[in-house]
């Protein structure tokens, strides 16, 4: 294994700690660039959703993962971004302008939400963000002169530099990828700047951060604004990808999905947002597979194991019934959340780190390295 000797602070905050990072991320980027020419159009469309969800995930990570402020209202920020884009588009505002405007407006709204949230902790903050999201959803449904209420709004295709960017074409994918990469790089830079350090300090202990001279209120509002702004950018892409938006798309369900993204991916690293987004978006193709092919596969296995044709048919029907049952997706979501919280609290990226460490330390790996500490004294209530 490689030992990194850090001799000054610059070494510690370097974006690429050693050349291996440049090669591996370069390779990843190359793969992503040729993806549209290899993958089917259905899969490409899923990959675009991965990019959008990952962008939101990065935004949410800044707030929840790095500043420690939980939010179950990010669907509302996404909605504000999406509706701003759809509204401005009616007046033939060019794409770059309304893209930036949507992000800025959402950022401002995020800051406005951040102010009242300053006084709130833990569960109260979660409930307050849920209420905020409900109110936004209701406003979208009622403010018909701007949002067309429950009829929803059509979103035209993007006109960029005189060309039309179809929502299914590779150019749109490159656009989403560029937004994601820029967001990630920007966030990485933010996190190694004094602002990012202040965020992490607030997450670890607000009291300690305050005594170190950090203006907790200012940085919390900043964190809300940045997180909301990034989500707003993602909202524009989301609106264009779906080409139609209506209030019932931006429900609590979507906010929970975003939390699932970072929960599954891992809340302590930006890798988590991307891994979680891949996982969440790919549940759909997996479910389709489950519905279409799984019954046949299982019946085939049963038949080869010696079950009669009749019984194999029986099994096939039973599996098909389960796989196409209503609400299977909800059950799978539920199980996934519980399983991750119970058994893999560090998420997929944490699992990857564990595997990596296992091989690095080969015979000496200890399970306890990643053990979390349990605290039974009620600290969170008396904060």
């Amino acid at each position, binding site marked *: 294994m490689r030992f990194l000797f850090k001799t000054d602070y610059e070494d510690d905050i370097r974006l690429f700690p050693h050349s291996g990072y440049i090669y591996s991320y370069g390779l990843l980027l190359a793969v992503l660039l040729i993806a549209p020419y290899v993958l089917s159009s259905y899969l490409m469309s899923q990959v675009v959703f991965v990019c959008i969800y990952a962008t939101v995930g990065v935004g949410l990570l800044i707030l*929840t993962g790095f500043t420690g402020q*939980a939010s179950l209202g990010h669907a509302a920020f996404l909605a504000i971004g999406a509706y701003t884009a759809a509204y401005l588009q009616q007046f033939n505002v060019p794409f770059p302008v309304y893209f930036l405007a949507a992000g800025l407006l959402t950022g401002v709204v995020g800051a406005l939400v951040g102010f*009242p949230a300053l*006084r*709130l902790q*833990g*569960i*109260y903050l*979660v*409930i*307050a963000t*849920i*209420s*905020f999201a*409900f*109110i936004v959803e*209701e406003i979208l*449904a*009622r403010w018909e002169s701007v949002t067309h209420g429950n009829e929803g709004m059509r979103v035209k295709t993007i006109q960029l530099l005189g060309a039309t960017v179809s929502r299914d074409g590779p150019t749109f994918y490159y656009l989403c990828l560029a937004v994601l990469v820029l967001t990630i790089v920007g966030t990485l830079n933010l996190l190694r700047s004094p602002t990012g350090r202040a965020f992490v300090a607030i997450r670890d202990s607000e*009291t300690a951060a305050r005594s170190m001279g950090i203006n907790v209120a200012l940085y919390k509002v900043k964190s809300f604004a940045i997180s909301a702004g990034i989500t707003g950018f993602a909202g524009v892409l989301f609106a264009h990808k779906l080409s139609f938006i209506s209030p019932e798309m931006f429900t*609590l369900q979507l906010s*929970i999905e975003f*939390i699932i993204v970072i*929960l599954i991916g891992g809340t302590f690293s930006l890798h988590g947002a991307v891994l979680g987004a891949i996982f969440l978006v790919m549940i759909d193709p997996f479910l389709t597979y489950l519905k279409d092919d799984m019954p046949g596969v299982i019946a085939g296995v049963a038949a080869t194991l010696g079950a009669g044709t009749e019984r194999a048919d029986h099994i096939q029907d039973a599996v098909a019934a389960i796989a196409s*049952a*209503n*609400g*299977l*997706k*909800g*059950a799978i*979501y*539920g*199980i*996934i*959340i*519980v399983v991750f*919280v*119970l058994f893999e*609290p560090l998420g997929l990226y944490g699992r990857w780190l564990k595997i990596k460490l296992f091989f690095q330390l080969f015979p000496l790996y200890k399970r306890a390295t990643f053990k*979390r500490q*349990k*605290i*039974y*004294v*009620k*600290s*969170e*209530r*008396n*904060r």
Partner: protein
Amino acid sequence: MLDFVQQLVSGIALGCVYGLIALGFVLVYKATEVVNFAQGDLMMLGGFFAFTFIGMLGLNYWVGFAGAVICMALFGMLAERLVVRPILGYPQFSIIMATIGLGYFLRSIAGMIWGTDDFKIETPFSQGVLRIGSLVLAYDKLSVIAATIILCALLYLFFNRTTLGTAMRASSENMLAAYYMGIPVKRVVSIVWAISAAVATCAGVLLAPITFIHSNVGLVLGLKAFPAAVLGGFGSIPGAVVGGVLIGVIESMAGFYLPQGWKDVAPYIVLLAVLLLKPEGLFGLHVRKKV
């Protein structure tokens, strides 16, 4: 005036249901500092159990009611054992997520078993009204109010007068200290979950004649119970019910006097206002961390 009283009574009846769900939140929160986002879904499941016993198996209403409460109390213990106990002591956020996951799971399982239709339970007081002058009050609404008062009184006595109740209050103050004092904290937590699931079931059964039982009812009503719990001060039993009643009345009045759309958001506006002005709620304790 008459309209106002009618609205008030139906608001109080609905508010009592919110209050009962909020009571479940508060019980669990007090004992374990876990906020159970699946509380509404426990209520939904309780309603479905009662529907199965009364509507499908044709049992007597009271027998079915008791059966549902017992089944759900056991289910609450099971949920606590499987989902909550392994993560007690971890950050609150993990536990919130785990209960959200549990809620998802229960909703979709209920949808698979009982379908997505609306169900109604026949109760002894579904029909009939109480007339006072020209005021007409339906028995089903009055029954909810009466049941809430009885349940509250029972819980109050339980928490303040029995050894087990005292043990619960002790472990809610400080789990570790309670453990050192010889209180079986794990069993206490498990019983708290059983009680909160039982209370949720009562809410579900009482609710069934007013609004119907369907697999998403828990999500809708559970989220309305949050404002109730916050308004009353998370962690206060009388607060939860008072908060619930206030939210119910506000919602019902907003639906009657304000333009369309206000009814749904009014509880949340109240919630945000409470969080901004008096985050500890009406009956809550304000505690600051000492370094």
